[in-house]
């Protein structure tokens, strides 16, 4: 008897007990759907987080002074590092404040960041209208501002007031440029920001230090090299390891993706348990089926079925059950994952490999839990099973 004949015989066996087969299948459907949905959600979330980190900029390295460890950074450190570290192509000092801003009769509270001319390159901003800050703005402490899209919308009602004045903490600033929308990174709206010269921000905040320096490595390949170099410089300068925290984008990315991967595996494993339970359901039903059909097995054996024909019949029944359940489960899981993803605001992340694994796994479950009942069926003595009523 060839394989497709066996599948046909198995299919008829299942069709004879539609409700029971469907309920048995349901266990596998739920299990597979849960695995597919959970892994899909996990992968989607991790992709979201990754894209958010990538949205920070390209080949970004962050310097953060640990003030309690005696770390201090100044605006001129940025220029200094640019000179000393050859693997770095840009360095931008930054001071951030939350300020109330005003335009005509509207007020709006937003993040005001003092930066320098290289910021768009480092943080992947694009200028939509006018210009960004230039070196002269910083050097001459000009009160000029570049607005993000959210500020334009919330403060200025959607039309960019290029060349006109807005107020930041009551001081007038001339709007010289508007940035193109960038979206969000690390959970922050990157468009909800006003950039002003770092020198002006320092004056307003009453400090000569900066809170952070953004550096850009020349390429992804040399980022690690640059990080090592920077750490060595700060170790020499402050005589201790942790005065300045040096974090590269890659490091954040790998740390976060390790977390999300663990998260995904955990979700998948929990869902996998339900798949296991579904498998036990298959075994249970197959055992009942073997007992019920003892006479059929006897008749088939009397007509010349070999043990392996009977084994194949029941094994294929189990696999057909689980694979059919698996396919339905994949579809439901996929739909579920995309719904959940929409709820969570990230793209659905089901990969082909998830589907393949779910499929293979459900077939495996059928095979594994089908072997015992099928073996029992194949091992029945023809004479006794014929006598069975």
């Amino acid at each position, binding site marked *: *008897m*060839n394989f497709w*004949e066996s599948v046909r*015989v198995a299919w*008829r*066996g299942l069709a*004879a007990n539609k409700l029971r087969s469907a309920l048995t299948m349901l266990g596998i459907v739920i299990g597979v759907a849960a695995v597919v949905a959970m892994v899909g959600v996990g992968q989607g979330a991790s992709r979201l987080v990754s894209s958010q980190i990538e949205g920070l900029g390209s080949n970004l390295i962050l310097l953060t002074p640990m003030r309690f460890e005696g770390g201090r950074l100044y605006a001129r450190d940025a220029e200094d590092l640019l000179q000393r570290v050859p693997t770095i192509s840009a360095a931008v000092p930054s001071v951030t404040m939350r300020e109330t801003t005003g335009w005509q009769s509207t007020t709006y509270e937003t993040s005001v960041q003092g930066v320098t001319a290289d910021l768009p390159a480092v943080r992947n901003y694009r200028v939509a209208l006018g210009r960004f800050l230039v070196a002269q703005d910083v050097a001459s402490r000009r009160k000029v501002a570049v607005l993000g899209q959210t500020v334009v919308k919330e403060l200025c009602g959607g039309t960019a007031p290029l060349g006109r004045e807005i107020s930041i903490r009551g001081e007038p600033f001339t709007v010289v440029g508007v940035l193109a929308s960038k979206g969000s990174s690390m959970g922050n709206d990157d468009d909800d920001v006003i950039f002003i010269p770092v020198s002006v921000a320092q004056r307003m905040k009453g400090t000569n230090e900066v809170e952070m320096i953004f550096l850009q490595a020349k390429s992804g390949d040399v980022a690690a090299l640059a990080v090592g170099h920077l750490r060595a410089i700060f170790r020499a300068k402050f005589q201790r390891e942790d005065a300045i925290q040096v974090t590269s984008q890659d490091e954040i990315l790998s740390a976060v993706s390790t977390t999300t991967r663990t998260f995904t595996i955990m979700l998948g494993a929990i869902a996998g348990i339900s798949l296991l339970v579904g498998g036990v359901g298959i075994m249970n039903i197959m055992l009942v089926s073997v007992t019920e059909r003892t*006479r*059929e097995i006897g*008749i*088939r*054996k*009397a*007509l*010349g*079925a*070999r*043990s*392996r*024909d009977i084994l194949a019949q029941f094994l294929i029944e189990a696999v057909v059950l689980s694979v059919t359940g698996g396919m339905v489960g994949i579809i439901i899981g996929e739909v579920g994952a995309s719904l959940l993803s929409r709820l969570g605001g990230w793209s659905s992340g089901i990969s082909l490999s998830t589907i393949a694994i779910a499929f293979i796994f459900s077939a495996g479950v059928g095979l594994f839990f089908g072997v015992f009942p099928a073996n029992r069926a194949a091992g029945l*003595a*023809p*004479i006794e099973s*014929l006598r069975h009523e």
Partner: protein
Amino acid sequence: MEGVSKSYYLGGTEVRALQDVALHVRAGEFLAVMGPSGSGKSTLLNIVGCLDGPSAGTYRLAGEEVAGLGGDMLARIRNRQLGFVFQTFNLLPRLNAVENVEVPLLYRGLPGRERRRLAEETLSLLGLGDRLRHFPTTLSGGEQQRVAIARAIVGQPAVLLADEPTGNLDSVRGKEIMDIFRDLNVKGMTVVTITHDAEVARYAHRTVRLRDGRLVDGRDDAGRLGQ
């Protein structure tokens, strides 16, 4: 078959179903086995049908010793050399008439079209040409038994074994079935049937009687080998 004994244990006590039975069935013979309930008739038929093995003694089918054969070989013998007809018909309830008849051919590995053709031919031969797609539950007892016979003979076996084939049928249907058996026998098939019914035994060339597991009134033509 020589010196065949069969015993089994039922609730701890030994039941000797057959004791030292010697029987030769010739090719082309029509043999009836009679005897009261519990005389070992069915056990004898099961051994002849390779569904069960003897506890002692030897059984040769077409000159071949059966005892040493493995399960797959026995299945092959049942599939190709033997055809079974049971008292309770034993049709598979979820398959229709043609599909039931196809089962032995399925295990023989015949392609689907060939199976269907042979099954339909055989059923038509037995007057069931208009019942091909009927399921067993929609057929009368006589029709069911004819489907069962079609299933037994579709593979052109050498020997047809029947266990009380008319036991569940009225006398008219029973006569139809026995007429079919006689026709098959005339065409060369060896037929061995168990029966209670002396009417049925009249169709046979030869009748042997069993009592308490022993052959009595054998009138066996000893010395002549089986097929």
